[in-house]
């Protein structure tokens, strides 16, 4: 009953707004299957052959384009790994082997022991349990320590690390590591984050394999909301976003929104500290001028425009048109020397130097080069 009332209130509000602003469309917070919209927003059911502002075609067919995927194709592309181990291939690798590969292929970006650097992500900040304890930290006072969000302290599942290394690393040459190498690097990640298996810290001797993979429990496995696993996964999400308080959003009846005296007395202006972040590339400018490179005179351009463009600017005079690749290809087949010579001495309907005998031979060459530069 409560649900129904709420829906009615919302749709009443919505239609009132639409009427006021003259917008056509019908929003609903419920899908046609009766379930609430999953993201806390609205959907637009088809009404009078329109979905929102868009007219839709009522025709429907079965199309069946494409073809069935082959087994090998499915195997080749279905390389994801899920938290329950689905997709994890057989194999193994040790911490020691992992460290060796890391030193060869990873350290230049991710730093010694995953410390990060140069903007590349840190992979470890020491003991994962200690780092995990920082997740409630808030830097809302000066010099406060923030939360440490690295693999060991933050990621909920090991499967993500294995999958990402295998498909997305090393950054400049991805999809180049074998399964065993991936196990080894994953083992090394566990080691530098001081994670545990069966209560024992993962030491240099440790070997990670498909057999013991699921025994690794990440410290932050319960650190995320809403709960998305299991048959109620999507319904949990739906419920979560139905409550705006969960995610910092504000709901309001538009008629009741604050228009006057909406602030506390303590409200104050916070300014950018110093110049803030301002190393913008390229620097911000809203000038409307020619770029520096465009201000440099282009050799041949002025003379071309003054003496040649009348005929060569279009194909109507029978002259090869500047910009017409095919026409200029046909001209250039004769070779550049012949083209220069024709331009100086005349060819077909074209008089010597296009009729402008004031032009030096060198200028004619520049003009031809300029014209050709626009025509290839």
């Amino acid at each position, binding site marked *: 009953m409560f649900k129904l009332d709420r829906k009615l209130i919302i749709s009443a509000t919505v239609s009132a707004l639409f009427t006021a602003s003259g917008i056509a469309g019908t929003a609903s917070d419920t899908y046609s299957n009766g379930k609430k919209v999953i993201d806390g*927003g609205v959907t*637009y059911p088809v009404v009078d052959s329109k979905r929102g502002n868009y007219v839709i075609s009522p025709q429907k067919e079965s199309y069946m384009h494409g073809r*069935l995927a082959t087994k090998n194709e499915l195997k080749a592309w279905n390389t994801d790994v899920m938290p329950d181990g689905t997709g994890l291939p057989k194999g193994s690798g040790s911490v020691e082997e992992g460290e060796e590969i890391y030193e060869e292929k990873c350290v230049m970006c991710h730093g010694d022991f995953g410390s990060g650097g140069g903007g590349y992500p840190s992979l470890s900040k020491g003991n994962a349990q200690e780092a995990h304890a920082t997740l409630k930290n*808030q830097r809302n006072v000066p010099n406060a320590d923030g939360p440490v969000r690295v693999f060991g302290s933050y990621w909920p599942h090991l499967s993500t690390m294995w999958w990402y290394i295998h498909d997305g690393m090393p950054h400049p040459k991805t999809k180049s590591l074998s399964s065993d190498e991936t196990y080894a690097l994953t083992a090394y990640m566990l080691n530098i984050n001081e994670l545990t298996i069966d209560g024992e810290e993962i030491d240099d001797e440790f070997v990670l394999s498909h057999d013991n993979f699921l025994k690794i429990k990440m410290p932050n496995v319960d650190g995320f909301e809403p709960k998305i696993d299991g048959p109620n996964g999507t319904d949990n999400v739906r419920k979560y976003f139905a409550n705006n308080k969960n995610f910092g959003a504000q709901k309001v009846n538009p008629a009741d929104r604050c228009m006057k005296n*909406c602030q506390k007395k303590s409200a104050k202006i916070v300014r950018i500290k110093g110049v803030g972040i*301002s190393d913008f590339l390229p620097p911000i400018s809203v000038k409307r001028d020619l*770029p520096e490179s465009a201000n440099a005179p282009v050799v041949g351009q002025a003379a071309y425009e003054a003496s040649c463009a009348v005929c060569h600017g279009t194909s109507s005079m029978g002259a090869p048109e500047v910009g017409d690749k095919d026409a200029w290809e046909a001209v250039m087949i004769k070779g550049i020397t012949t083209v220069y010579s024709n331009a100086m001495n005349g060819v077909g309907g074209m008089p010597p130097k296009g009729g402008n005998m004031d032009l030096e031979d060198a200028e004619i060459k520049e003009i031809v080069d300029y014209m050709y530069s626009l025509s290839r």
Partner: protein
Amino acid sequence: MSETLRSQVTRRDFFKKAVSVSAIAATAILLPKKASADEPEIMHHAKWGQKLGYPVTYNRYGLPSPYEHNNLRRNTKLLASGNFQASIAVTPIHESEGIITPNGLFFSRSHGGVAEVDPSEFRLMIHGLVEKEIVLTLDQLKRYPSVTRTHFIECPANGGQEWRGPQFNSLQFAKGFMSCAEWTGVYIKTILEDLGLKKEALWMLAEGSDNSEMGRTVPVDKVLDDAMIVWGQNGEALRPEQGYPVRLLLPGWEGNLCVKWLKRLEFAKEPWYCKEETSKYTALKPTGKAIQHFYANEVNSTVTHPSPEKPWLGLKKGEIVEIQGLAWSGMGTITGVDLSFDGGKNYVKANLKGLVLQKSWTRWSYIYKYEGKPLLLTSRAMDDAGYIQPTIDQETSIMGVESVYHRNAVETWEVTAEGMVNHVQIRS
């Protein structure tokens, strides 16, 4: 709050007058009261008018005027994970007109560089919990009936550098992690009607073919609502930066979920836990818990004119000026925008203008008589899902300051007495 600010607040009646037809008409008659000296721009022939222009055959693919060379995507080192392949270049929304971003200025975000896909080698695999597991070529995909929709795409980190205070004195960087385009593609549900989605399927993995093999998990609810596979962007093929030849489009949802260079869609009953939905794109709250699967970009707005890039320099007291901005919501359609001149203490109703579309940029406007006094301009948008933009205090009271993603609190520009514009925040 200063005395100056307080003195600006009860002017609603005045604004009403300023926008009335008679007030504007009177101004128009009064304005050109003095003649200036003869301008050479008029007294002499323009140099471009006395020579031939370039032939219509010159630019086979048209380019902006060279005078527009500063209208560019920009980046900063802070927003790069080590290099400019795992990075973002943001849209100059201070130069945006209307609600469509030109393809060359659409913000560009990648996790392993922009992939250069050969369309003849493109294949899309749809598999998992469907009756028929298929492979489509690009031509086969495009044989499905197409739909064309205008939607914004926004990186959920738009504004995410400013949870603890303003950092960017720039509209482009404060709000430019987004763009809006007209997309053409096919509803995924149209294809699924052919393939037969199994009942137990709750989730879809979308995976890219790029260097990072970018993947994300999408609930089937969205797939069966308005999720699209798109190949067209503003009347032409997708740009490489947007996932050429094909990307996923989840209207209103995080840009990161709209997987580019799309390669496969897999359906399953359990979610995947991809890298970009665990290590990143999760919003850590002060409770120590992080929101995962945070989908829709919430209702939001900004003032584009004036802005730090578009100050009111040269504007004289008494002149009429249009205050303009954008509003958008990934949860629905914009229903209204309010504008404050005192940083959010008091609001007046601004006006929407142009097309007002679902999950799209929407333009708003307020005609204003400039008084030559300092202002704190704050806009506040609402949508038809019933949401209104929170204040900074309201949002941080739930989300804290470490969440990085999905910040949609109101934004404030300080306009100085000289017409300069600075990014500030109002906090209690």
